């Protein structure tokens, strides 16, 4: 993985000094809260329902065991013993004291980490494929390009006060695992006929209040122009993006207002003056950065069947089937550690689990881990011959729930328990659903399905692109949930359709149950939930869900634990 050189260290160190001083000025009253706000946001610090929340950048989701141990340390020393991995491949801590944030940043800097631009109206942490570098369908490893973009966007002087937040995702494989279509800029690595590496550039995707799928504005951008072309996009957006209404300020609205063609024309015009300037990437620079992402020193191994010798072990087989993914190197596999054990908020990990995962990374996976946008953790380079041992170890730590891609692998934002913007709780909803369907055979029968929950229209839980999406809404001061189906992420990204009037929290497990019943009734062999919805439309689902009243009394699971 990338390692800081003296310049990276210097910049992060100077940032801490700057931020420490800003905090000091805030505490002394020299800075008003209004003035401090964009400064702290650019440093990932939010004011939340109970306390400050600090969001730390995990560039493209990749981290070392040492960095993971630092999270455990932060969780213990400055928080309440846990952290929350997010859909943007970062981590958040929910109980932070303002006065301590500069020290946390100093601790982070000691392991080459920071919280720069994890929030605020600037270019955010660049996200990518959690299987980058190991996926068999990869054209080229996107991480060096993500790293180059990370450096270029860090404290970019011109794009530090954009109309709105700005998110870039990059994918290097045939299958999109980085949700590029729902980012402000989505880049896909492509090779042209001459074998040159470049990017297909999508712009204007995003969720929130107005979910829109990005539009391709350039089919092939030679890689050396990555920074100048991005700069051209940013400059057009910075000047013409709306600033009068924060809900209409994202680049997707600009693109819609003037049309993708006109937008692309303006970008090309801006770019004409930039193309070929010194910001153009050099071969040396690319080689330098790529050198950090060379494949690990893999052993020459034969591919084996990890099941061999454990044929009778159904639990192990289930786990292999769901949580273990193929690797391009023979004899290796990528393992997903599930952070979706029933009863735990999706994406949460305790300090002990973080230390343990770090330890696993050292012993099984070249000391590296990845955060997925589905809020799980990946060990990308595990020998197939060690899978059984690994499984036994992680089982004991609650990280082996064999539910990746299943109904209980829920994406869920912190919602009303933590987030001051929430209209409704989301963690207890996910807990109640997970509890209701805590039956593995049933889950495996349902198969691949994505259930995404957001506590408000901001869509931090990606509900728009969930096969089933749940959105917390406020009606006359009480919490309700609106359900959509048919959303999808990946190559066939789609925005879900709302099925009808919203439900109370207690009705939600039954609503999910009814949706699943229609699917089970209607599906053809091997058809996934989302494909059934695409084929038969939402009407049969809608009909069944609303056919008879749902009366689901009783306490909602987890309601009190996380309040």
């Amino acid at each position, binding site marked *: 993985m990338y390692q800081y050189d003296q310049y990276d260290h210097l910049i992060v160190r100077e940032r801490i000094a700057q931020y420490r001083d800003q905090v000091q000025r805030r505490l002394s009253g020299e800075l008003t809260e209004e003035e401090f706000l964009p400064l702290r946001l650019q440093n990932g610090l939010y004011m939340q329902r109970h306390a400050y929340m600090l969001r730390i950048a995990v560039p493209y989701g990749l981290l070392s065991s040492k960095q993971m141990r630092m999270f455990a340390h932060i969780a213990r020393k400055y928080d309440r013993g846990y952290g929350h991995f997010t859909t943007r491949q970062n981590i958040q801590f929910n109980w932070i004291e303002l006065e301590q944030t500069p020290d946390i940043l100093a601790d982070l800097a000691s392991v080459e980490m920071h919280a720069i631009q994890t929030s605020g109206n600037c270019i955010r942490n660049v996200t990518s494929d959690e299987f980058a570098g190991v996926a068999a369908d990869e054209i080229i490893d996107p991480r060096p390009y993500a790293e180059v973009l990370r450096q270029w966007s860090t404290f970019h002087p011109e794009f530090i006060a954009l109309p709105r937040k700005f998110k870039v995702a990059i994918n290097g494989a045939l299958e999109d695992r980085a949700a590029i279509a729902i980012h402000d800029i989505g880049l896909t690595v492509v090779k042209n006929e001459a074998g040159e590496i470049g990017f297909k550039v999508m712009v204007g995707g995003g969720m929130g209040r107005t979910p829109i799928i990005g539009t391709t504005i350039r089919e092939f951008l030679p890689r050396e122009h990555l*920074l100048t072309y991005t700069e051209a996009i940013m400059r057009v957006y910075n000047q013409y993006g709306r600033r009068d209404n924060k809900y209409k300020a994202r680049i997707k609205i600009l693109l819609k207002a003037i049309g993708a063609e006109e937008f692309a024309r303006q970008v090309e015009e801006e770019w004409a003056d930039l193309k070929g*300037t010194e910001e153009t990437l050099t071969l040396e620079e690319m080689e330098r950065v790529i050198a*950090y992402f060379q494949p690990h020193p893999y052993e020459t191994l034969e591919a084996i069947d990890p099941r061999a010798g454990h044929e009778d072990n159904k639990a192990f087989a289930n786990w292999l089937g769901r949580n273990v993914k193929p690797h391009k190197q023979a004899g290796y596999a990528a393992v997903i550690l599930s952070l979706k054990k029933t009863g735990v908020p999706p994406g949460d990990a305790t300090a002990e689990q973080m230390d343990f995962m770090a330890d696993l990374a050292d012993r099984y996976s070249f000391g590296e881990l990845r955060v997925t946008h589905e809020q799980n953790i990946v060990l990308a380079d595990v020998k197939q011959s060690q899978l059984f041992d690994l499984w036994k170890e992680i089982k004991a730590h609650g990280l082996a729930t064999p539910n990746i891609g299943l109904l209980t692998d829920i994406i869920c934002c912190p919602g009303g328990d933590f987030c001051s913007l929430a209209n409704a709780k989301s963690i207890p909803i996910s807990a109640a659903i997970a509890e209701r369907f805590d039956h593995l055979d049933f889950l495996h029968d349902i198969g691949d399905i994505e259930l995404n929950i957001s506590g408000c229209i901001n869509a931090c839980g990606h509900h728009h692109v969930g096969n089933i999406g749940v959105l917390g809404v406020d009606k006359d001061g009480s919490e309700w949930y609106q359900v959509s189906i048919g959303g999808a992420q990946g190559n066939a990204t789609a925005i879900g359709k709302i099925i009808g009037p919203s439900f109370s929290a207690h009705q939600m497990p039954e609503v999910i149950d009814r949706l699943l019943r229609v699917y089970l009734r209607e599906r053809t062999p091997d058809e996934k939930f989302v494909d059934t919805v695409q084929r038969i439309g939402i009407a049969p689902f809608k009909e069944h869900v609303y056919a008879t009243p749902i009366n689901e009394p009783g306490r909602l699971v987890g309601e009190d634990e996380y309040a």
Partner: protein
Amino acid sequence: MPDQNTIQRIIKGNQIVADDWTVLRLEEGQEPATVEVAAGKVIVPLKVWQAQKEALAARPEIGVWLQSDERPEELKGELDKFSVVAVNFPKFTDGRGYSIAYNLRMRLGYTGELRAIGDVLRDQLFQMKRTGFDAYAPRPDRSIEDALKGLTVFSETYQASVDDKLPLFRRHARTAGAREHNDIGSGI
């Protein structure tokens, strides 16, 4: 002679200097074509310049300022007429002024004084300098001495901008480090 306290001061380059320019801002009801531009060194709004170009162009020292939603291209071909071009920041969170400055310098080739006016605070000065400003009129309710410190927060930057056309990777030889994780497991 006004006393020391009322002399307006700005930051120019890296120093605090006295400044005798006045910035004309249109009041409610005032029209660009008819507003009276006082004698002396005045920085007028773009619209006033456009409406009263003939009279103003004849004056020895005149400046113009752009609102954050105005286009610097409108001054194409005229930039050498001004001793000062200013960009207004109606709000410190409005970042359009940085792109305006960039385009004034890089696309339009303006080389004279480029001044940031309006809601200008210490924590913006560094990026202002980078995007081509060389003069800053910090908000008068704040210490200008403190604001000066905003210019020197970082000693290195990654990307090119107006102040340095070379990105870090062209300015310095950056060498790829060893990729082994020698220190794995060393704890914290």
